[in-house]
């Protein structure tokens, strides 16, 4: 197992820049998830670690050794592809043993490693089959098996669950997590699915536009998003955001919306009076009542999920979503009032960066 250090990595195809200087340290045994929308550069970064893309500038070190100019085969990493990339003309067993056979490992060692991996993943009954005779979930397992057989320094996953249906994805997600616990292997996992990111990661790296937006533990990103992008990307349904102006009010402060509605903030923020800010609140922190205390709003749409209820609300042209575990939700078209828990509000400056409360202006 090994650590991975990434220093000021840049990638450009001609004049088209994909990564604009990425720095990241991945500790030995850590499970890091790169998450972001399509085209944010997360897969490119992963492929650069794997050696499948050339590094335009910057340094990648695996276990302290600079690997920029090493071929993929010399980096001692394993990768699980979205398409699984199983060799169609080889049996499951041959697929899994290919890397060891290339390394001319002893026959007994190969058999031991392959059988061990097959046992871990429940693949024993399929060892003689070709990949096309397997279901999607089984193929996915073979791809994982092929990666763990070799005991590489690090595992790279490129959206490995994207081709599976929802139920299987959930199942495999748990398996991957279990496997990581068992092997303790350094893992870098790329996904655009924030649930996968939240559930799997020790640390999440949120990326957008070829730049890292925030690095932190899943709950860190959820509770203290560094900017509006992370706030909107992590969490489903997404965080509600409103543009407002900042107003001091004694020890605390207020955010004044366009229509004059004021929202009380728990504490003062280091911003000038009247500055443009964006406030954000997660749907589960929107409290919906029908007793006339709060900001009046109209229910536009009710989405029962079984687990809870998502309410789409409108207040003076602003749309917000509220989530509650209650099933007894107001009906569509009903007039309600909403309140925001002041200590749950997120405040961002006019560039979208998070502002922490309490510091003097």
């Amino acid at each position, binding site marked *: 197992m090994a650590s991975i250090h990434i220093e000021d990595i840049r990638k450009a195809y001609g004049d088209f820049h994909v990564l604009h200087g990425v720095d990241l340290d991945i500790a030995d045994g850590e499970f890091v998830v790169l998450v972001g929308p399509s085209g944010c550069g997360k897969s490119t970064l992963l492929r650069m670690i794997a050696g499948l893309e050339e590094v335009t500038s910057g340094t990648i070190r695996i276990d302290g050794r600079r690997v920029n100019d090493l071929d993929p085969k010399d980096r001692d990493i394993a*990768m699980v592809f979205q398409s699984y990339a199983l*060799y169609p003309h080889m049996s499951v067993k041959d697929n899994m043993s290919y890397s060891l056979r290339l390394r001319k490992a002893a026959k007994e060692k190969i058999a031991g490693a392959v059988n061990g991996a097959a046992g871990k993943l429940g693949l024993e009954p399929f060892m003689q089959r070709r990949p096309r005779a397997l279901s999607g979930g089984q193929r996915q397992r073979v791809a994982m098996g092929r990666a763990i057989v070799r005991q590489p320094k690090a595992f790279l996953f490129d959206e490995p669950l994207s081709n599976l249906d929802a139920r299987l994805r959930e199942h495999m997600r748990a398996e991957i997590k279990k496997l990581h616990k068992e092997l303790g292997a350094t893992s870098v996992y790329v996904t655009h699915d924030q649930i996968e990111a939240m559930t799997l990661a020790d640390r999440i790296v949120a990326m957008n536009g070829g730049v890292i937006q925030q690095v932190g533990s899943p709950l860190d990103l959820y509770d203290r998003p560094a900017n509006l992008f992370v706030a909107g990307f992590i969490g489903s349904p997404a965080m509600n955001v409103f543009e407002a102006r900042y107003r001091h009010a004694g020890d605390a402060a207020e955010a004044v919306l366009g229509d004059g509605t004021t929202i009380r903030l728990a504490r003062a923020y280091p911003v000038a009076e009247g500055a443009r800010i964006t406030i954000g609140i997660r749907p589960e922190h929107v409290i919906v009542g029908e007793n006339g205390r709060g900001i009046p709003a109209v229910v536009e749409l009710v989405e029962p999920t079984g687990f809870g209820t998502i309410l789409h609300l409108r207040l003076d042209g602003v749309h917000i979503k509220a989530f509650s575990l209650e099933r007894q939700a107001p009906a569509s078209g009903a007039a309600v009032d909403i309140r925001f828990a002041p200590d749950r509000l997120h405040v961002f400056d006019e560039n979208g960066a998070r502002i922490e409360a309490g510091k003097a202006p």
Partner: protein
Amino acid sequence: MRKKRLGLTIAHRLAILAYIVVALFPLFWLLKVSVTPNELLYSEGVRLWPSSTTFQHFSFVLVHSDFPRFFKNSVIVSGGTAIIVTILASLAGYALSRFTFRAKYWIVALMLLTQMFPLVMLVAPIFKMLSPLGLTNSLTGLIIVYVAFNVPFATFLMQSFFDGIPKDLEEAAMIDGATRFMAFRQIILPLTLPGIAATLGFVFTAAWSELLFALMLISGNQAATFPVGLLSFVSKFSVDFGQMMAAGVLALIPACLFFLLIQRYLVQGLTAGAVKG
């Protein structure tokens, strides 16, 4: 409804039958003439099958004519051309499919350009070039010319087969510990067998039946290929149809055998890419 469907099926089969008859009739005629004794050829009029048959033409062609040598020459030239072209086209097709490199666009354009000239235009310059090199009247010269003319098309053919194989596969192999060439040889090439068979078959038949260059570059019987050799049955005063047709029938054998061998891959190959998976 059922009747209509039955009618349509019958019409469909009849259409196929008509096509097969039209396509195969010349071959049948070839066979028929090859077994017709000389004395019956003109005396019996037009008949579907002669009143008596003979293998005398075959035995003459095999024993007394130069045909075995033409045949051997053709096998060498066509086989050699097919193998060389397929190797070159596999490598070039892989490069075009997988790599981006400078002047790729122009190389492709140039390769296309070579396919646009009528071959007749090129006969004289090629003769001029090969002659001082001692490559006229030689099988090697013929192979070089055939390879040159077949490589571009075969490259495009192979490229389309490589395009159909996901890049992930060799990337996975390279991460597993293979060099790119090993990944190509162990992972990609086995998956391209249908394409290779199609290319081999295509080039082999093209070279097997090529007449123009064989006629222009080869004089005399020593290095003549089979299509040229066929003309030796045409003399100043007569055409020996029986022997010519017998030679023709014999010449069909290797092509048939070849396609029989590769047809399993060929059908896969020609339909590859039509259906995903």
